[in-house]
């Protein structure tokens, strides 16, 4: 993985970020730099705090009842966690693709046009151009071009997620956050979505939260491993995956591979408390530890 100049310039700096749900601390002083125009994967078992961290970037955490945070996240010299930060501008600049595809109760066209419209674009021809462009970028245009006026909820779930991608980038963000964007998708749709993401990193800084290590390996240039609210290890993906420095990272990655073997083929390190790997595309098989009772990832 090349660590060239463009990525090193102007990274997103996460400084001392802690997150709380009520009195419980779910993120413990995270310090991390996220390079621009790369895909950075935040990995870790369910409930480790990775979604909470993601929700800090665009201040979606403000909408979560009982959640609070401290620290700084510096994007282009601005602290997005600052008291007087312009939250709406931050959200335009930092898009989010949610775990579950959530089309708005509108037509396909109106879903993509939603963002541009709230920023004042009224010109029909211009909107048509925008919608077409971003549907093309999201790899959905060919499938929906003849039924743009039909309800978005009639799309398949994989198409819905690509529609959400098109809607997210139609407001021209610089950073795209993806919160386990394929966990609700079937394998074929997941693959399709991943390919779309790979194409997008030329233009966007992508931060993807995933408990699917294989996905992280396929996509990520950089990786950060979070466990029980703590940043354990981060760095270029190849380094972290092939040569993890921390024992816990090692155990997590190794655990995943052991779990992938058929039960009779290999000994399971079941006694290891950190061994809860995920199986591909199947979040239900996760044995992640829930840090706060009743508060699992994506809640």
């Amino acid at each position, binding site marked *: 993985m090349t660590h060239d100049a463009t990525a090193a310039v102007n990274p997103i700096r996460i400084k001392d970020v802690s997150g709380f749900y009520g009195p419980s601390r779910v993120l413990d002083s995270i310090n991390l730099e996220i390079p621009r125009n790369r895909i950075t994967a935040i990995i870790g078992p369910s409930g480790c705090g990775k979604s909470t961290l993601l929700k800090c970037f665009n201040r979606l955490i403000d909408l979560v009842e009982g959640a609070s945070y401290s620290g700084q996240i510096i994007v282009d010299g601005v602290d997005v966690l600052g008291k007087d930060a312009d939250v709406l501008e931050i959200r335009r600049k930092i898009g989010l693709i949610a775990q579950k595809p959530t089309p708005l109760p509108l037509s396909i066209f109106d879903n993509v046009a939603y*963002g541009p419209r709230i920023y004042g674009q009224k010109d029909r021809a211009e909107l048509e151009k925008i919608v077409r462009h971003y549907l093309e970028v999201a790899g959905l245009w060919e499938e929906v071009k003849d039924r743009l006026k039909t*309800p978005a909820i009639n799309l398949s779930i994989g198409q819905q997620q690509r529609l959400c991608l098109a809607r997210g980038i139609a407001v021209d963000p610089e950073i795209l956050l993806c919160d386990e964007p394929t966990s609700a998708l079937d394998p074929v749709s997941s693959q399709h979505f991943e390919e779309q993401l790979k194409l997008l990193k030329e233009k966007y800084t992508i931060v993807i939260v995933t408990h699917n290590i294989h996905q992280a390996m396929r996509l990520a240039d950089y990786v950060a491993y979070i466990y029980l609210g703590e940043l354990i290890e981060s760095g270029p993906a190849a380094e972290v995956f092939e040569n993890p420095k921390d024992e816990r990272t090692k155990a997590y990655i190794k655990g995943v591979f052991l779990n992938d073997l058929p039960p009779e083929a290999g000994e399971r390190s079941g006694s290891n408390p950190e061994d809860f790997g995920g199986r591909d595309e199947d979040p239900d098989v996760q044995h992640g530890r829930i840090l706060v009772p009743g508060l699992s990832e994506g809640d």
Partner: protein
Amino acid sequence: MKGLMIAALTIVVGSLIAIIGVVVWKGLPSLSIEMLTETPRGGYYTSTGGGGILNAIVGSLYLAFGSTLIALVISVPAAFALQDEYLGRTRYAGRLRLALDVLWGTPSIVYGAFGFIVMLYLGIRASLLGGIIVLTLLQIPIMIRAMEEVIRMVPREIKEASAVLGATRWETTTRVVVHQVAPGIITAVLLAFGRGIGDAASVLFTAGYTDSLPGSLFEPVASLPLAVFFQLGMPYPEVQARAYTAALILLVIVLLLSLASRALAKRFRKNILR
């Protein structure tokens, strides 16, 4: 258990059929073009007059549409204000809901009596305006609570999907939530309209009754529920039959409106995840 269910359903469907059946059976014979197009001749309380009950039909439509419209204008903002993003998480929201529930449960004769006192105090006599005001008060709690239940059911993910694009909560409410709740709002309006057009007690003192068509906001108006009430109380079978005709017309108006609102709600529902 199965027997209980069947019994319950039989009672429900049976009474519906019985009600419609009796009203049609008793009301249909007196139904005529004259009934629908003329005002009563010689007073609604005599058997000799003839004529129709156009005064009550028009009066009821004025009263019900007028009050539904005003109640709608007041209820929509109030119901949206009870969302979590606005007042919903404050203690005022809970108190407001309680107050509305109490108002919803208040018997309409109490509304009528209250309206009567207010009108006496203000020196207004029974009139279309008085009726509209009292019916508006009667409808508001029904509308707000029914709308608010629907608005509260809007999935948080949808509001978040709008928020993450940089939409304000106002934009989210007016451009997204509204689409999601439109069918529910239509249902709420219908529910309130049905209560308004069918209520006799609240308009008894406030709107009065008259044999002529409503002339102005400040004159008394007739209404279908009172046409039923007064005519049924007369000792002449011919007049009593006219009461059933008025009931039949009332039933048909509500039925037509239900069908229309269902068709309307269906159009709005196509974009919504069920």
